[in-house]
């Protein structure tokens, strides 16, 4: 059985993008180790509401590590420190010790303005995908699925790239606020598949241009993004994106 722990929680409060923001603090008592991090915040919010105060606002939804909604910066690391890739919702209190101080902040990046407390606006990611992160395939009667043979190795590799959940941890971890890991994962998935090749050049150029336009920084290969990615996306994708991008530009 997991033990109960008590700790000090410091959590970021900010009323909108223009507010300066500050930390609130609370002593959390006897939290069971099998409580998830977000369930611990549910307990915090029950306490706040019972005292007539406004709850702490943060994004969350599926709570099983796949929707990409949860986005907390815990003790200086996006999604908190776990042994292997995991999202905030998959972090359990057994990973913390009695007497710890736990600090919770939002993703901090020019590309993700704060809406309230730890809820941030990530529509920039949607805009990058809209710029070209797709195969233009009209709904209707495409050829039989097995008419396109794809070697297992390529399909598996494309699948790994496609695992990105669009949470934005990579941007939050990057000192340049770069979205290269996110962009390169999508570009790589489609570049590895024959269906994606016809638009590959246009896609790489359009997505990179949109990323630059929205204020995301450049990649300087510090690999901070890779270290925090909950889906273990590799920076090899960034190399592939650079290759696709340069090849596309050379053909201009």
């Amino acid at each position, binding site marked *: 059985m997991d033990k109960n722990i008590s700790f000090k929680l410091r959590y970021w409060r900010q009323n909108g993008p223009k507010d300066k923001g500050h930390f609130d603090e609370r002593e959390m008592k006897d939290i069971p180790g099998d409580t998830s991090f977000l369930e611990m915040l549910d307990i915090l919010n029950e306490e706040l509401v019972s005292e007539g105060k406004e709850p702490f606002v943060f994004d969350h939804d599926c709570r099983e590590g796949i929707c990409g909604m949860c986005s907390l910066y815990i003790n200086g690391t996006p999604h908190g420190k776990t042994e292997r890739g995991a999202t905030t919702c998959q972090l359990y209190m057994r990973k913390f010790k009695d007497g710890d101080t736990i600090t919770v902040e939002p993703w901090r990046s020019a590309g993700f303005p704060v809406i309230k407390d730890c*809820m941030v606006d990530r529509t920039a990611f949607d805009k990058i995908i809209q710029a070209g992160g797709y195969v233009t395939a009209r709904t209707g009667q495409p050829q039989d699925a097995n008419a396109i043979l794809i070697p297992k190795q390529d399909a598996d590799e494309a699948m790994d790239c*496609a695992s990105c959940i669009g949470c934005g941890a990579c941007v939050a971890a990057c000192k340049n606020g770069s979205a290269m890991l996110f962009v390169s994962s999508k570009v790589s998935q489609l570049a590895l598949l024959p269906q994606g090749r016809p638009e590959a050049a246009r896609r790489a150029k359009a997505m990179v241009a949109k990323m630059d336009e929205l204020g995301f920084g450049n990649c300087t290969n510090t690999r901070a993004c890779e270290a925090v990615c909950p889906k273990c996306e590799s920076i090899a994708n960034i190399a592939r994106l650079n290759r696709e991008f340069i090849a596309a530009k050379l053909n201009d």
Partner: protein
Amino acid sequence: MATLDSKIPAGPVAEKWTNYKAHQKLVNPANKRRLDVIVVGTGLAGASAAASLGEMGFRVFNFCIQDSPRRAHSIAAQGGINAAKNYQNDGDSVYRLFYDTVKGGDYRAREANVYRLAEVSNSIIDQCVAQGVPFAREYGGMLANRSFGGAQVSRTFYAKGQTGQQLLLGAYSALSCQVNAGTVKLYTRYEMMDLVIVDGRARGIIARNLVTGKLERFAAHAVVIATGGYGNAYFLSTNAMGCNCSAAMQCYRKGAYFANPAYVQIHPTCIPVHGDKQSKLTLMSESLRNDGRIWVPKKKEDALKLQKGEIQGSDIPEEDRDYYLERRYPAFGNLVPRDVASRAAKERCDAGMGVNNTGLAVFLDFSESINRLGIDIVLQRYGNLFDMYEEITDVNPGELAKEINGVKYYHPMMIYPAIHYTMGGIWVDYELQTTVKGLFAIGECNFSDHGANRLGASALMQGLADGYFVLPYTIQNYLADQITVPRFSTELPEFAEAEKNVQDLINRLMNIKGKKSVDSIHKELGHVMWEYVGMGRTEEGLKIGLQKLKEIRKDFENNLFIPGTTEGVNIELEKALRLNDFITMGELIAYDALNRNESCGGHFREEYQTEEGEAKRDDENFFYVACWEYQGSDDKAPVLYKEPLVYEAIKVQTRNYKS
């Protein structure tokens, strides 16, 4: 009352859809540009519909409550998607998929709809591959398949344990393409608050901007809701935290009939409940039942020791394990449909054989398959699910526990059934139109294809079938008559009235100023629903449940507390508005369960079972779709109308998974 015309086309079941498409009305390209469609929801059904309609040339407004369309809960589906491709040469066909789905649904689905679903299933796979969905492949480069419950063929296509994610990202990319093309306008962090009806037709919605808190009006020629199921009425379920039935309830209150609400699917392989602070239940994919074996101890004393934590599952040798699904259902074994597997687990736990401290869990064991296939192959298939299980429970099912008499035993998973999917939903005809003209419902939020129980890997199939291949055709049959109708002004009195009603409701809830949080009341609702309207229902229990639901409604109306204001983000207000609808939904489920004096699929009434404990249907009296009409107030009981089921192609029989 509205009329219940299911509009099933004439002809043999295999020709109905072809005949329909050949004779339906179409809208020419110039007119499409003048017609607006609102699509609420961006899951598989909503995103694929919005993308397809946009691509066809309609002007589409697409709404979701999350920060991005890609977050919709379709993303969490793990196992796969069915299609009748017969790539495995194991005897599959459109007819067999149709037959399995009807049988799996315990003969309570509408035959013509299910046939169409099976018919378009193959196009879905083709479409998704064309979009670049990275399905699993064999070494030769062809698509791979796996088996799922309720079928004797391997027809499930998958992308690791993340099939829902990949299909949703496929639909999201098609949607993004249309947003870029300017045909679809996206509204994220917007929640539908009410349906607006003008001259008897759905003409728009009132939506709340969740960031500013402001109510806004949107008009269109047709409204499509694709807002998912109502599982969160039970508080604990495998649904995402934001999943809700509010859009469906708004349509219901505005005259759309609600069909078969009692058909709620309880998924057999979820991680058991661990405490009262828990916020949701995590599903472990049904695909685990391909190689995992489900068991409890044969001996009561072993079960007691497990419950006290004195021994572990791996301490119990092979001969003392009761693989009860293999014992009871030799032909399907661990791959019986979900309702059957869930009830069998409850039966063993009720008999005192549960294996965790609450006595409400059974084992799912991989020892045999690891010994047979080797750990590498098992990890290749289920590694990410094992990791996910370990994150939550601190136990890894791929880890060797001990050896007894030369047999290697691995740590078994503990699982228990949990609310997962809702087969019931807004009543729709063959065209997916509700009883309100111009209002369509697609995906999980309609009722039509799964009968009383849904087979695994069929939800993704239905969502995409509705969105890509059915609605884009059938909605034209309606819109073709709307081409002379100009765009609407949201200044019409109907919009003003609907907005005022929503504002009044919000003010009323804000001004209760009681002492109870939304979640505390939602948890009480969940307890009542699980206890009295859950896996085993009785007439007496349902009546108590209905009484308790009335008390919860009263508690909600008198003791609710919402901090903050209506301006800006107010997450407590959002949840309160949804809970208001969950209570109404809970009552609706209970009324339907009380009316249906039979057991079928996910609806199990303890009074109606065979001597062996199997569900006992009553086709003579209940061979119909139960459609409920709202009576103008949440305090009044809804009124029942019946759509008789007509089976032409399939002979209705008792489900048999034994031989």
